């Protein structure tokens, strides 16, 4: 087990910069996720940790050891590939034993450890099968066993669930977490699936265009996104460009930009980052999650209450998704299905409240493709 430090790392392929100015500090035993759309640099970063790429600039450390230019076979990491990369000419047993054979483990111990690993992934009865005879989920578990049996310092998972169907994916998600807890191993998980990232990780790093935008726990990332990219990449969100009117002790008054009749809002003054955002010259947006907006039948006293008209209603089972038009601004609102939502229909006039505490001012960086 080891911690990982990535210091000022840059990776360029010719003139394209795949990863830039990356600093990460991954703790021992942590389940750490790289999240981002395809081509954002997350896999490149993983491959620099595995040793398949060497950084153009910067340092990669495992614990205190500088691993920047150590070849992959000397890093003692266990990697699970997106396509599993099982050796097609070997049986399940031979696949799992490969890393131990390279390490010249005695045959008695090798057998014990391989069977032990196969048992942990519940495949002990499949050890003599050819890998081509296994289902996708089973192949996935062989790949996990093969990576874990060498007792690596770090487990690297490159979109391991993307080739599985939805039901199997849920099952393997639990399986991977269980194994990670069992082995207490530092794990880096690469995915573009926000649900996987939120549900599995201790911490998440959100990437786009080779830049890491935010590092934080799932709740931090979801509730307090650092900018509009993080906000809109993870979950659904209402993002509205705004201008600051007045900064007060406990709240900030803002005006929406894209409305003929400007809507004025009050936002809680988040002392920690609010002021610095306002002081920077970035464009600003206000964000609110659909489930944070309240729909009211009758008007209510309080801040940020507006009259609007229901534009559309979509039923998703547990959640009803309602779009409300407030002076030409469309707000998405998620309401739990309480089995009597029938009073929502297109064209109905309602009131909405945007709670002060749930509104966040964030900088707009989108479209910043370098």
């Amino acid at each position, binding site marked *: 087990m080891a911690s990982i430090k990535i210091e000022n790392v840059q990776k360029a392929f010719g003139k394209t910069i795949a990863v830039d100015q990356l600093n990460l500090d991954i703790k021992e035993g942590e389940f750490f996720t790289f999240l981002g759309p395809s081509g954002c640099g997350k896999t490149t970063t993983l491959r620099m940790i*595995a*040793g*398949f790429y*060497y950084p153009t600039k910067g340092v990669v450390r495992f614990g205190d050891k500088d691993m920047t*230019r150590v*070849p*992959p*076979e*000397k*890093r*003692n*990491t*266990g*990697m699970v*590939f*997106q*396509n599993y*990369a*099982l*050796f*097609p*000419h070997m049986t399940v047993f031979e696949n799992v034993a*490969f*890393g131990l054979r*390279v*390490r010249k483990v005695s045959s008695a111990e090798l057998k014990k450890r391989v069977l032990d690993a196969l048992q942990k992934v519940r495949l002990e009865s499949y050890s003599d099968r050819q890998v081509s005879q296994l289902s996708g989920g089973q192949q996935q578990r062989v790949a996990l066993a*093969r*990576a874990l049996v*060498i007792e690596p310092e770090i487990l*690297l998972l490159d979109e391991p669930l993307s080739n599985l169907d939805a039901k199997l994916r849920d099952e393997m998600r639990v399986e991977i977490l269980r194994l990670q807890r069992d082995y207490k191993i530092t794990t880096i998980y690469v995915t573009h699936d926000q649900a996987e990232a939120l549900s599995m990780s201790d911490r998440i790093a959100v990437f786009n265009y080779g830049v890491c935008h935010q590092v934080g726990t799932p709740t931090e990332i979801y509730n307090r996104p650092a900018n509009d990219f993080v906000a809109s990449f993870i979950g659904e969100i209402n993002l509205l460009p705004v201008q600051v009117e007045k900064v007060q002790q406990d709240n900030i008054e803002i005006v929406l930009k894209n409305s003929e009749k400007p809507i004025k809002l009050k936002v809680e003054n988040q002392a920690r980052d609010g002021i610095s955002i306002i002081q920077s010259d970035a464009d600003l947006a206000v964000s609110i999650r659909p489930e944070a907006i309240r729909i009211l039948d009758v008007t209510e006293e309080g801040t940020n209450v507006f009259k609007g008209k229901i534009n559309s209603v979509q039923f998703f089972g547990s959640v009803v998704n309602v779009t409300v038009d407030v002076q030409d601004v469309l707000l998405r609102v998620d309401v739990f299905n309480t089995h009597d939502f029938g009073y929502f229909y297109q064209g109905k006039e309602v009131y909405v409240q945007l709670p002060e505490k749930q509104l966040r001012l964030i900088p707009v960086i989108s479209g910043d493709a370098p």
Partner: protein
Amino acid sequence: MIKNRDTRLTVWLLIPVVLVLIAYVLYPSLRTFIESLQKDGTISLGNYQDFFVQESKTNLEALWNSVYISFLSVLVSALIGIPLAFIFNRYDFPGRSFFSSAAILPIVLPSLVGVMAFMFLYGESGLIPNAIKDLFGLDKVPFKIGGVPGILIVHAYTMYVYFYMTVSAAINKIDPSLEEAAYNLGANKLKVFWKVTFPLLTPAIVAASLLVFMISMASFSAPFLLAGGYRVLSLQIYFSKINGDMEIAATQSVILSIVSISFLLFMRWYQNRKDYRMASKGIGAHRSEVKNPVMKWVMVLTGIIGVIILLLPHFTILLLSLVPDGTWTFQTYPTVFNMENYRLLFEDPNIFKPLRNSLLMAVIATLANLVFGVIASYVLVKRKFIGKSFVDILVMIPWALPATVIGMNLIFAFNEPSIFSFGQILVGTFWILPLAYFIRHIPLVVRSTNAVLEQLDDSIEEAARNLGAKWFYTFRRVIFPIIMPGVLSGTLLAFIESVGEFPTSVLLYTISNRPISIEIMNQLRMFNMGQAAAYGMIQITLIVIVLFISNKFFGIKAEKAL
């Protein structure tokens, strides 16, 4: 020093590959080019001037004849191969799959043996014309092959397979829903064929045409035995060499090379330019059953007749090999059949020696091909380096160059000591023929290995290294075992082609080291048809064994490597 280990490894693997290619592909070609510029001891373009403006025009005529024959060969092969590909891949009728595998039978016939079979079948004293003569009581044989039609028939027989195979592959790749979409939009059968199916097949047809054109430009055995007084360029080179006109032979070689290499480059350009790769996955077979019973049996009957025609040459060779020499002289048909020729082949050391020579030289050449092919292919497919397309072209050059030219190149390069032959003169020694066979089959082995390596996902190698295996261990235990079937099927094919190789052998052989093909030629000259046919049968048997092994044990269609 280079810091990155992987880069260093690439360099270490690349050095021998590039050295071999420079020494045995590039350098000999350059030597021939330099030789062609020598005229009466000075450097000039005099030889080229002679080639094009010579009064007798023999060279120009030979060039024109070569182009003419090649053009007709493409046409005839296409007319046989494309319809066959359609019939076998689009219609279902009894025996379809048997006939479709029989369609590649001409491959199972070494070129020299094939031409020989055609001579005995359809030549002046051939079995078929004489049978017809006797059957209808004619005064003389109704037809005999020879000259241009003879060459064309042999070419059509062997080369339609290239059309058949490439077009079949392309037909099977067409997503049926594309045609269904066209029908759905209201197009009739003819319109769908011309507007959808045919355009999708164009790349395959163009590729096959270029290939057949190149192969018939290089064709040697057919003109050698059938041309009579008709001049083609590949044969002219041989005659110039025999006559000792080395500068002229060099000039002819350079001109033939230029034609061939421009075709290679054109083909590469064409294939990279247009790529109708199908977007859809998992395309099912798309054959319509022939329901009309008359039509169905007409097709089956045609199939059977076709297979008989395709197999007649093989059968003729088998038959002739059973006729002891000296028993078939003035008779129209042979009368005595026994195993005498085979007994002599294995008992008389003088008759066995050419077979032994060929096998030994083919083993040496093929082992070299295997080692070189695997390294070169690995570097080309899995490693990045500057100048890759240059190395790629060097690898493909022996494929584009006619065998006669490769033979001449080797003569010019190694009839004097050079650093690439460790200061030895190779011409006139044992080693020149294995070297020639090796060079001839570089592209075949590299390309068949490329095909399997391209299938191999990079992550397999990465997974092994991630688990702690060093590169060489990974290569030995993971990569090589996975690609071995594909590599071996290509290598075995190179082996059988080396055993039967004629054009380079005829230019480079030594009396003490005669290969099988030269001995066949000699036996034919002495009218020992039986012995020649017995040699031919040995080759056919070898080929059958190899194709069988490849299909059975490696699950790979060896002919794909062609």
